[in-house]
């Protein structure tokens, strides 16, 4: 089915002409009485970096969870990739159809070697490819994210945190996704590492993959995002150009609380 594109919001300076690559309509997730995500709609256009901000508990990660159906799908709402609904697909089929995701924590296969971590994804995506070509592709992707070649055979659980994040991103990219959902790639990184992470995010976009980025490190988010949406208590409270959104009174209030006096 075709999903009609959203009209760009009044605040949005970014008004793309292209059809959206990923579009969400009315996404909602209830946990008992709690609405973790409440009627969220947005479009992501090809080649774009869409930033998602919001205070802790505003539903950002839950949004990624219900898009990828890991570990659960939405209570209501619809996600479409290139106009095709993902509703009927299981989690692994969504991953193979072109929506990749990374976690805030470095989610790797700890007792598999670094290259095997990526190989698992290459093999899932291209099972018919010759083995040596699969290994070569895993190597290329590790190079793309800047993972050191000397550490390919180390166990993933034993490498430092930044490298584990690189591995997780490389594994996601090994699916050759159309869009990658990155959940706080800069969390628990040092300043110089955050700079390297910014370069990785930009390199991913330059390689033709569209990015949706959740990030608490606002400098990074502001620097790379073409557009920004802000969630609070499960709802979209602002969306548009990053500089405009971040100055929005509702956003300031969500982050800092209501101004008194």
């Amino acid at each position, binding site marked *: 089915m075709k999903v009609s594109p959203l009209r760009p919001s009044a605040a949005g300076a970014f008004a793309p002409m292209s059809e959206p690559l990923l579009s969400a309509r009315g996404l909602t997730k209830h946990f008992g009485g709690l609405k973790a995500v409440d009627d969220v709609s947005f479009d992501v256009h090809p080649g774009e970096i869409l930033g998602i901000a919001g205070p802790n508990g505003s539903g950002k990660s839950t949004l990624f969870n219900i898009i990828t159906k*890991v*570990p659960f799908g939405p209570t209501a709402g619809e996600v479409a990739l290139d106009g095709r609904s993902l509703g009927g697909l299981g989690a*692994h*089929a969504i991953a193979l159809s072109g929506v990749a995701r990374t976690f805030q924590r470095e989610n790797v296969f700890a007792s598999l070697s670094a290259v095997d971590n990526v190989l698992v994804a290459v093999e899932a995506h291209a099972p018919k490819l010759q083995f040596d070509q699969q290994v070569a592709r895993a190597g290329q992707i590790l190079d793309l994210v800047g993972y050191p070649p000397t550490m390919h055979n180390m166990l993933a659980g034993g490498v430092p945190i930044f490298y584990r994040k690189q591995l997780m991103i490389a594994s996601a990219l090994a699916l050759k996704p159309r869009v990658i959902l990155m959940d706080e790639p800069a969390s628990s990184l040092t300043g110089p590492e955050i700079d390297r992470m910014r370069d990785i995010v930009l390199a991913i976009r330059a390689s033709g993959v569209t990015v949706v980025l959740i990030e608490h490190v606002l400098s990074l988010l502001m620097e790379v995002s073409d557009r920004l949406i802000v969630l609070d208590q499960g709802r979209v409270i602002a969306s548009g150009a990053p500089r405009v959104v971040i100055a929005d009174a509702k956003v300031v209030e969500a982050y800092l609380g209501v101004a008194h006096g």
Partner: protein
Amino acid sequence: MDPITLFSIIKGGLVLGALYALMATGLSLVWTTLGIFNFAHGAFIALGAYVAWQFASADAYGLPLGLALAVTTGVMFAIGAVIHFLLVKPFERRADVVLITVITTLAGSAILENALLLIWGPRSKQIPELVEGTVAVAEFQLAWSEVLLLVVVLAILIGLGLFLRYTRPGRSMRAVSQNREAAQLLGLDVPIYFALAFGLSAVTAGLAGVFVGTIRFMNPAMGAEPLMKALIVVIFGGIARFSSPIYAAFIIGLLEAFSIYVFGLYWAPAVLFLTMIVVLLIKPEGLFGKYQRTL
């Protein structure tokens, strides 16, 4: 102790160890991959023995033993996968999955054992020896069937280890066992790999059953005692690596053989449990264990 007695104790211990290794590896394969304990594993042991008997025995179909083993392998794999989809998969997403599957696999075990009783009746059966004759070096006697058992079990375990390490489904299975959610996000259809683990586990149990069926008389409850030993092995050795239960199995096998000689048949299980308790007191994660479970 004279050398011949010592030799026969060690021989007996190695044979027991090999059987325990096969059973424990299957048990830990399911535990590491799915995070549940399969109490139907003992029934799989009996089922494997009966299926092999049906195809190999002169009283039944009388097929060549190699062919019967191949058929048994196929049947066990299918049964294992089916049991997973019926007894485990429906409860996978529940928080109390470990407890629920204790009940469902126990139920499955009871159903399987009674099905065996219905189909094959209560009369004890025995599978013909895989090969006959003995080999003697000086005064030390060794039956060819024992040599074959050791060789075949080691070949199966090495094959399984290589499968997990160097093949695509093996690598994917390890990925699924280490991180279910990350594996899903990398496009792996998790239930398929769970079924694969269950199927392989059932195959190892079934083949262990075939060997037990050549050594002892078969009855539908014949898997209960080996399951208990496999459980001791898994707890004693830990499951940090694929090889941990295998080492532990040979230690337990040899320990059992020596305890039977020294303390007698009735005290041997007590010695095993005592050893297990001491190991758990000193090293709760198992002799070769680490705190996390991995494959």
